[in-house]
């Protein structure tokens, strides 16, 4: 087909979002409200009124670490200290496993550095029995639910004690008892599944709610749309989390967001109330999660939350961000670091100090080191310390059918290996 046409009109061209290097880190976050500036709507507030706040940002902690405004959550000092501990434990956990990867002990890893407040905070704001449908960057959910670190590490090492029998890529955990749905390697599939789980709870007149997790890049996937359609149509009791850490491997958020102002806007296309929340502000995370959970439990339907944060590290151990990342991005990120900000708050209210912080750091490090020592003693896929290869034939079906029994026999005792 030729492109000849009326010469009076301009030739067309596309907008190809500018590559990462073109973007100044400080401008990364659009529309930053002051702490306490955004009001807290009633649970049953009309979506159109909530929409008027679509460019505001839920923030509780100000620059001095003071908690201000209507969103200040009503939680104890102990709860806050627990949140600090969970975040530091998650960070220490990630650090140890990254080291293990450098040591060649594991095949792959993905950290959540800089995003810890979101998973850790929401886990504490929900209830036992609720179900999270996470991505690979919500290890904070499991850690805050006190899932044994050593079990997580055994999974990452794919050793004999891996609860998943070495079947899954490292970090693809699963724990129904801890409200953590099996992670899929296929992006976005869990988003509509979470809506289905929430629908089931409502179909059976239950009380549990579901929480769906997705990265901002994966919102471009089709299942994100299916989830919003079903959540909006059936008014399912679900929290729709979008973790906007500004990166999808090498592509900036612009590719998934397009021309819209925010990812929260997606919710308004379906009249689903949507909040933008400072994801590095633990108290804001807790408060917003609680608000969304209460709406769901009160049969007021789904809530979408865009969490603003930054993927401080590489996408995974297979990624080299130096090729595409602007320099000093983390340093200049306007929302700071979640651990530091909660610590500052606790110090501001005189419930924390440098000594206690060092002590806690030592404690969580020791806990991680101990857990790793135990996991490491079982070896890893790298040292060939894996369970029997025959287990791969289990759980394909509830019972092992004849053709899989034949294949298991054909594999032979030693399990092949070549």
């Amino acid at each position, binding site marked *: 087909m030729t492109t000849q046409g009326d010469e009076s009109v301009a030739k067309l061209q596309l907008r190809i979002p500018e590559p990462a290097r073109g973007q100044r880190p400080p401008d990364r976050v659009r529309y930053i409200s002051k702490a306490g500036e955004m009001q807290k709507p009633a649970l049953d507030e009309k979506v159109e009124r909530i929409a008027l706040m679509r460019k505001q940002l839920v923030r509780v902690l100000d620059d001095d670490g003071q908690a201000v405004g209507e969103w200040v959550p009503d939680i104890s000092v102990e709860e806050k200290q627990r949140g600090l501990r969970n975040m530091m434990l998650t960070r220490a956990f990630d650090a140890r496993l990254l080291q293990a990867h450098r040591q060649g002990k594991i095949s792959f890893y993905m950290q959540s550095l800089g995003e810890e407040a979101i998973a850790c905070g929401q886990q504490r704001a929900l209830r036992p029995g609720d179900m999270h449908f996470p991505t690979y960057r919500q290890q904070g959910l499991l850690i805050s639910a006190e899932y044994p670190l050593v079990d997580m590490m055994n999974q990452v090492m794919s050793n004999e004690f891996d609860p998943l029998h070495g079947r899954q890529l490292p970090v693809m955990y699963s724990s129904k008892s801890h409200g953590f*749905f*099996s992670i899929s*390697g296929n992006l976005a*599939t869990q988003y*509509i599944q979470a809506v289905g789980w929430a629908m*089931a709870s409502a179909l059976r007149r239950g009380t549990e709610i579901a929480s769906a997790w997705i990265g901002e890049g994966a919102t471009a996937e*089709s299942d994100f749309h*299916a989830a919003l359609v079903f959540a909006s149509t059936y008014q399912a009791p679900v929290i729709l989390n979008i973790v906007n850490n500004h990166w999808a491997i090498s592509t900036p958020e612009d590719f998934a967001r397009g021309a819209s102002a925010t990812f929260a806007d997606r919710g308004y296309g379906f009249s689903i109330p949507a909040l933008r929340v400072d994801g590095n502000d633990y108290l804001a995370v807790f408060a917003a999660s609680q608000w969304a959970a209460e709406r769901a439990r009160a049969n007021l339907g789904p809530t979408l939350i865009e969490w603003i944060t930054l993927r401080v590290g590489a996408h995974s151990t297979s990624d080299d961000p130096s090729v595409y990342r602007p320099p000093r991005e983390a340093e200049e990120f306007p929302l700071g670091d979640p651990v530091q900000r909660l610590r500052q708050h606790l110090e501001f209210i005189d419930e924390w100090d440098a000594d206690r912080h060092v002590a806690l750091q030592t404690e969580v490090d020791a806990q991680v080191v101990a857990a790793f020592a135990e996991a490491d003693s079982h070896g890893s896929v790298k040292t060939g310390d894996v369970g029997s290869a025959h287990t791969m034939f289990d*759980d394909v079906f509830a019972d092992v059918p004849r053709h899989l029994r034949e294949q298991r026999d054909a594999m032979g005792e030693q399990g092949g290996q070549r």
Partner: protein
Amino acid sequence: MTAMTMIEAIRDAHVIAMERDDNVVVFGQDVGYFGGVFRCTHGLQERFGDHRCFDSPISEAGIVGAAVGMAAYGLRPCVEIQFADYMYPAYDQIVSEAARLRHRSAGDFTAPLVIRMPTGGGIFGGQTHSQSPEALFTHVAGLKTVVVSNPYDAKGLLIAAIEDDDPVIFLEPKRVYNGPFDGHHERPIVPWSKHPLGDVPEGHYSIEIGRARVHREGNDLTVLAYGTLVHVAQAAAEEQGIDAEIIDLRTLVPLDVDAIVASVEKTGRCLVVHEATLTSGYGAELSAIVQERCLFHLEAPTLRVCGWDTPYPHAHEWSYFPGPDRVGRAMLKLMAT
């Protein structure tokens, strides 16, 4: 016993499964208020309420994705894809999620769900209302695939599928919904009421998934068939006067290998028939298995009579459909070898 069409038998299976287990929920496009474009879920919403049977938005990915989440919660969803030709948007949720959930979570989460879909041509549906995609499911570890050919099996197998703890793909050749179609499209439709397999027991019964059924005993050659082609093969055998043993596989995965081997060892000749396109169809797997397990009993190459490797053409569907003449010619060729 009651004479039922396959549609009535499928509806009856739903009723019985929903009565026995509150966790069984049914949804899909037009299945609730309307009762399904083929009426297979007619009356369920009225009888069980809109929290047990309801309509869904037009999103196959959403239907199956939501069903996987419901199954993980503890329900037993039985969903309808309006035509098998429209399952592709749900393929990722079927292959990457439903089929793998138990394995990847080591049994922590499971997906006991049934995905029903009408298959096959013969209703002038053209290329998007005629497909038989069974081979796209049989290649996927973790899925059970059932294809029904008659009301008796349809009811027993659907109840078994809903009660099964694994995801089951349940394929319903639409051309046999109302009668045992033998490929003679030019003749009047024979109703199920005139066929022994249209006699369906009342109440609960189930048929084991993984068991074939000898549809017709014979000694000349073995026909491996399922769905509509079971009846086509029978017509072809009778018209050619060939004493064919016709095996209705009923379940493609897991496959009843013993039934196949026993018959082929007896007859020494094997014909594989299906409506789906030939290349990489399930018939290839059957042919491969037969020669792997029975090569030295074979007096002739196993032949495949299948749909051509083209889209299903609207105006020429009877040239595409593997009817009794094509199947019969293949039988004669087999006997001549």
